[in-house]
């Protein structure tokens, strides 16, 4: 059952990821990215990350992607045009990326010990209680610094996107 669920959601994530790269319309890419994020949330649940799965759906698939879709519609982004041909990118880029993926996949197979399986329910430290406890004790200072970062991001976004006032 675990393996079946992993297969289904991994397939969804992979297909949506490929779709993101090959689609020519920005809005199709955005919807594919929503699919990837939803599938990843399910995989987080399989790995025992209850809080982070919910946060993935709410923050990533919800808030950030709504922002993206909003900007795509605001700017009326259509089909992208290829103004310049790059033959070297077409012929060297894809094989080099395959080499990168092959190397990483091979390394992962090499270093991970056999019989190291993911069993649903084995990891129980991903509940909101545990995440909250770690966040507000061990990681309290980074958490507070993050709030300053968010404040600066809000101010920056407002300053950048406002209308010019004479």
């Amino acid at each position, binding site marked *: 059952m675990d393996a079946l669920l992993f297969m289904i959601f991994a397939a969804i*994530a992979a297909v949506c990821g490929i779709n993101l790269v090959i689609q020519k319309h920005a809005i199709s890419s955005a919807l594919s990215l929503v699919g990837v994020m939803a599938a990843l949330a399910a995989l987080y649940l399989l790995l025992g990350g209850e809080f982070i799965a919910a946060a993935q759906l709410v923050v990533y698939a919800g808030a950030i992607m709504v922002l993206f879709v909003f900007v795509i519609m605001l700017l009326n982004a259509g089909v992208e045009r290829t103004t310049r041909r790059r033959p070297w990118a077409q012929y060297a880029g894809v094989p080099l990326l395959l080499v990168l993926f092959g190397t990483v996949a091979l390394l992962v197979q090499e270093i991970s010990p056999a019989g190291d399986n993911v069993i649903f329910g084995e990891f129980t430290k991903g509940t909101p209680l545990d995440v909250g406890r*770690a966040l507000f004790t061990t990681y309290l200072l980074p958490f507070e610094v993050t709030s300053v970062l968010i404040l600066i991001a809000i101010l920056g976004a407002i300053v950048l996107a406002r209308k010019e006032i004479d």
Partner: protein
Amino acid sequence: MPALPAAVPLSWYLTLSAFLFVLGVAGFLFRRNIITVFMSIELMLNAVNLTFITFSYKLQQVDGHIFSFFVMVVAAAEAAVGLAIILTVFKNRQTLEIDELDSLKN
């Protein structure tokens, strides 16, 4: 069809994460629309998050979850500022193609 194993090896999760990361790199390199390039960066961040969660499972510690939580927060801030920059670029140049944004080149 070969029979599925009862449980999934940890390495499959890491391989999926590597695959998604490579897809993000491909989108970043090959796509010409500035918004799609930005979305490819988000895909790479998501792939790294999956690695964090997988190793958190392996080490039986919650720290990986905290790290991916921080990655999410920083991605949200980055998306807000980045999309504001894209809006400003579009207002000034009326284009979203990164090929045409080359005033620093010459």
